C-alpha cells in the first residue's frame, strides 16, 4: 500500500514540469510583465528541466507548447517553437559538456541560451514582417537572466522532492 502511494507521489512530481509548461502556455503567461519587469518564465522552465532532468520534459511537449503559444499570442506558427527548441538545444549541449552542477554554472550558461533564443525570435518575427520593440526585447532578456536564480531554487526544491 505504502509502495503504491509512493509510486503515485513520484508520478505526480514527475508530471509537474509538463503541467507547469502547459499551464503557463494555455494561460498565456509565458511572459510575466509587472511594471518595468518582464520575465520569460517559459525559457527558464525549459532551460532548467532540460538541463537537470531531461526525461521530465520531452522535446515534443516543448515544441507543442511553442505552437500553442504562437496561436494564443497571434504570432506566425513556429516562431515560439523555434525559440523554445533553441533554449532546449543549448541546455542539452551544456548538459553533455558539464560535469559539476551548480547555480553559478547554470546561470552563466543560461546567457548564450537566452541570447540565441531571443535572436532567433527576433529574426523570425523580422522576416515575418512583424514590428518589434527592441527595448522591450532587451529588457526581457535582462530581467529573465536576473530572475533565473529564484526559479532555479524553486525548481531545485521540486527536483529534490522528485528524487526523495
Amino acid at each position, binding site marked *: 500500500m505504502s509502495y503504491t502511494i509512493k509510486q503515485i507521489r513520484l508520478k505526480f512530481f514527475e508530471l509537474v514540469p509538463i503541467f507547469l509548461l502547459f499551464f503557463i502556455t494555455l*494561460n498565456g503567461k509565458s511572459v510575466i510583465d509587472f511594471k518595468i519587469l518582464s520575465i520569460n518564465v517559459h525559457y527558464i522552465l525549459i532551460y532548467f528541466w532540460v538541463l537537470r532532468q*531531461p*526525461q521530465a520534459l520531452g*522535446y515534443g511537449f516543448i515544441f507543442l507548447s511553442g505552437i500553442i503559444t504562437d*496561436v494564443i*499570442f497571434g504570432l506566425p506558427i513556429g516562431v515560439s517553437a*523555434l525559440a523554445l527548441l533553441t533554449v532546449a538545444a543549448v541546455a542539452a549541449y551544456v548538459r553533455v559538456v558539464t560535469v559539476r552542477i551548480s547555480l553559478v554554472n547554470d546561470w552563466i550558461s543560461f546567457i548564450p541560451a537566452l541570447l540565441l533564443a531571443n535572436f532567433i525570435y527576433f529574426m523570425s518575427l523580422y522576416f*515575418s514582417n512583424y514590428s518589434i520593440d527592441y527595448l*522591450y526585447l532587451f529588457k*526581457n532578456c535582462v530581467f529573465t537572466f536576473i530572475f533565473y536564480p529564484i526559479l532555479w531554487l524553486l525548481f531545485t526544491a521540486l527536483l529534490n522532492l522528485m528524487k526523495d
Partner: protein
Amino acid sequence: METNREDVGIAIRSAFLRRDTQQRFSLFVLVVISIFLLFVEKIETKPLNYFRSAVKDTIYRGSEIISFPARSLGGSIDLLSDHINLYTNYNNLKKENDLLKDQILTSDYLTLENTQLRKLIDEQMVSYSNLVSSRVMLDKQSPYLNSFVINSGNNKNIKNGMEVLDGKNFIGRIVDVNFFSSRVLLVSDLNSKIPVIIESSENHAILSGRGTGNPTLEYLPEDHKVKPGHKVYTSGKEGIFSPGIPIGEVIFEDNQFQVLLFSDLSQITFINVNLGNEIKNK
C-alpha cells in the same frame, strides 16, 4: 586541438541528433519542422486555411477553459477594488455628469446647425451600419502583439480588415478569421497604422501604435494646428474604414502628440464588428 574539435562535434551530435533516453523526438527534427511551419505560414490555400482555422479554434477554446480560474480571480479582485473606490468613483461621476449635461446643449445646437448646412448644400449622407456584437474570448496581451480573440468568425460573415468598435469608439481591426473566432489587432499595437483626421485643426495623420502606452500621431503636416484636447476620428482615407468614427483625444507627452483612447483597451468585454456600411449620396 584536433581532439577538442572532435569533442565539440561529439557533444553537438549527442545533444541535437541523438534521441535521449525517454525522448521520442530528436531536437534537430523538431527544429526543422518549426522552420517548415514558418514557411507554410506564408502559403494561403483553402485546405491549409481550413486546417489552420480548426487548430486555432480548438486551441482558443482550450485556453479559454484553462484560464477560467485565473480570469475569475482577476474579476473578483476588480470587483473588490471597485467597492473600495466606490466613494471616489461616485464623486468623479457626479462631476462628469454635470459636465456632460452642459455639453448636451452644445451638441444639440451643433446637430441642428449641421442639418441646416447640409440642406443648404443639398447633400445628405445616410450611413447604414451592419454591426455584429461579439464577446472577447481571450485577452492574452503578448509583448509583441496587442490583440484579443473574439467568439465570432466566418460563421458571422466576419472578414479580415473589418473595423472593430467598443460601443461607438474605434479600437482596432480584424486580422485573422477562423470558423468560430477572430483576432482583433488593437490600435495600440506596433503593427497598427490607422489614417485619422483631427477635429478642429482638420489635419490628416496616421495613428501609429507603440506596443505599450498611448498610440502616437505620425506624418502630421509641418504647419499643423493640432493641440491637446482635439478629438481624433477615422478619416476613411483609402476606403479602409468608415470615416468619422471617434478614437480618442490628443495629448502632448514625451515631446510628441499622443492619443488618449476613448476606450480602455484592458477593460473590454463586448465589441461590435462593422460588417460593412453603405454610404449613399443623395
